[in-house]
């Protein structure tokens, strides 16, 4: 795509985002607004993986680690501190710190793609089994009991300037949607910066980038940390929209779902994963209402088919088709023009003779 077309696409996305932001709470009923808030929080998670995988080339199978840590950190901080705004900041920082910790060992150990994917996945699974076992009263941080299998009830979110005034679910939709829009355009901006360009070149060829003098490890670590922070933010939004955070955020199903959103939507785009998450949230909630097709069966087949047939994902494939058709039309157009010009020159020559 040309730069001007890309700008147009971004403007279009911004307009759609703003229309959704103000339109949804006015038109839909409360239940839909709440579930859409959850979908938006998952879209932020998808965006974080889309950023680090699609633009940083970091294959993280356990992006839900930071999502879950964000959610838990938020719940614990909100219970202990009382203020929701501070708790969100704390949660994002904790998630980022977890990403730094994990990322340091992985990137400075120079682990390959496959190892990295499997380790991040293992971290999720072990967190899942560990947190499930923390149901006893001795497992608590401050006044917040971790609660094992049942998780933590998140206190209602309050206004930053008045801790006794709570947001209604409709109001919280604005918060989540603004968070999605801001992170989306932040990610777009990030991919345009020097840092983003270098990260992209690492994705394309790590050795060559390193030979050009860039310290690949620190770039990857930064990218991973930013991704972790965004996933942590998504976790706080999720915990607020559901009203509770449970160890299930760390389970295999959710880890797989996150990967599927990005694969289906398309690696190397930012809007693809967001759309993937929103569409799949809709599909999985439809599938959850019936008992004919098992949801895992469906997701497994979708994943296999996409890997084999549409490995790039929907958005890049559509863009490719569109660009190809357009360029074909352009070449056909210019060929016709050339021919016409050629013919007129021939007639000119004929006249001269």
């Amino acid at each position, binding site marked *: 795509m040309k730069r001007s077309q890309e700008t147009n696409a971004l403007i279009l996305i911004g307009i759609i985002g703003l229309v959704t932001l103000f339109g949804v709470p006015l038109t839909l009923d409360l239940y839909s607004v709440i579930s859409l808030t959850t979908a938006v929080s998952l879209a932020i998670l998808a965006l974080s993986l889309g950023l680090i995988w699609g633009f940083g080339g970091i294959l993280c199978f356990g992006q839900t680690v930071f999502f879950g840590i964000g959610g838990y950190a938020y719940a614990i901080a909100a219970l202990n501190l009382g203020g929701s705004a501070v708790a969100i900041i704390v949660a994002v920082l904790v998630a980022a710190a977890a990403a730094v910790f994990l990322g*340091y060992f992985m990137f400075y150990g120079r682990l390959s793609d496959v190892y990295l994917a499997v380790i991040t*996945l*293992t971290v999720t*699974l072990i967190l899942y089994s560990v947190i499930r076992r923390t149901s006893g009263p001795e497992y608590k941080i401050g006044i917040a009991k971790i609660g094992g299998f049942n998780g933590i009830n998140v206190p209602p979110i309050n206004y930053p300037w008045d801790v006794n005034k709570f947001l209604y679910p409709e109001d919280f939709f604005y918060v989540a949607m603004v968070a999605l829009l801001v992170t989306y355009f932040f990610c777009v901006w990030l991919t345009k910066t020097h840092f983003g360009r270098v990260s992209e070149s690492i994705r394309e060829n790590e050795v060559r980038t390193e030979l050009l003098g860039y310290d690949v490890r620190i770039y990857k670590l930064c990218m991973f940390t930013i991704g972790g922070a965004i996933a942590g933010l998504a976790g706080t939004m999720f915990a607020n929209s559901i009203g509770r955070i449970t160890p299930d955020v760390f389970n295999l199903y959710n880890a797989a779902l996150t990967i599927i959103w990005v694969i289906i939507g398309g690696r190397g785009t930012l809007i693809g994963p967001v759309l993937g998450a929103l569409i799949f949230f809709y599909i999985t909630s439809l599938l959850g209402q019936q008992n004919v097709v098992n949801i895992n*069966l469906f997701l497994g087949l979708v994943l296999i088919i996409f890997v084999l047939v549409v490995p790039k994902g929907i958005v890049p494939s559509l863009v490719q088709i569109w660009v190809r058709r357009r360029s074909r039309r352009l070449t056909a157009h210019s060929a016709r023009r050339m021919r016409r010009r050629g013919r007129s020159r021939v007639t000119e020559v004929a006249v001269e003779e």
Partner: protein
Amino acid sequence: MDLFASLGLQIIYGIANLVLISIGLAVIFGMMRVINLAHGEFLMLGGYTVIVSTNNGVNIWVAMFILAPLIVGIIGLIVEWTLIRFLYGRMVDTLLATWGLSLFFIGLITTIFGAQTETTIAPPFGPIFIGEYSSSGYELFLIIITILLVILLYLLLRYTKLGLLARGTMQSAEMAAALGISTQRIYSTTFGIGAALSGFAGGLLAPVTGVLPTIGAVYIGKAFITVISGGTAILAGTSSASFLLGGINGIVSFVVGPTMGEVALLLFAIVLLRLMPRGITGHFFKRSL
């Protein structure tokens, strides 16, 4: 003294358990450098094979030692044939496709048998006693079986024609192909053997854990971390990593509790990989199997 003997047995069982759940994965990883994310589901299928066939009147030993490896091995071959074959050389896509497969199997088994635990079978051995401490006889049996399995695999790789071809392919697939070995066939055989080993392990563990469609998730975290920490040498890698990780898990579990045991295992593995990114056998025992 009895306490230490009992604790020692527990730790050895932990190590054997790690070897058992990761050996099938290690075979596939050592050969193709690809982690099979459907590994947990191969274990789960092995468990279901044993429990369903035992409940239908098949002798438990036949179900464990013949049916489970056979059926899961065949499933492995079918998977290789219809899916993995198209993805050689595309590591990331293989990971993703096997993950899809994992979800597919979970969904399929849930559809057939329901999401609940299938009726469990009792372990065929009673408890044994060390002084005043009792220990499960079946766990002792599993330890012995695991040791025998490792020896058998060693003999297979070291002294048979298939083992020779497999080792050759592992060292340099291109060279092996140039010498006229069908690496394609070696790969599919290995995948089948890896799946069969996983099915066998799943079947052996079924009386201890019971079976659920999602039981694979319980195993895979530990299996992945063991195989990756071990590196690409199948037997030396898996055994040394199981020894280290299982030992740490056992000791920390005894001192602090089982919750911290798993965390310690994970943290130790992550630090280990920072120091030895290619796993233990990438640095030590390089020429071993």
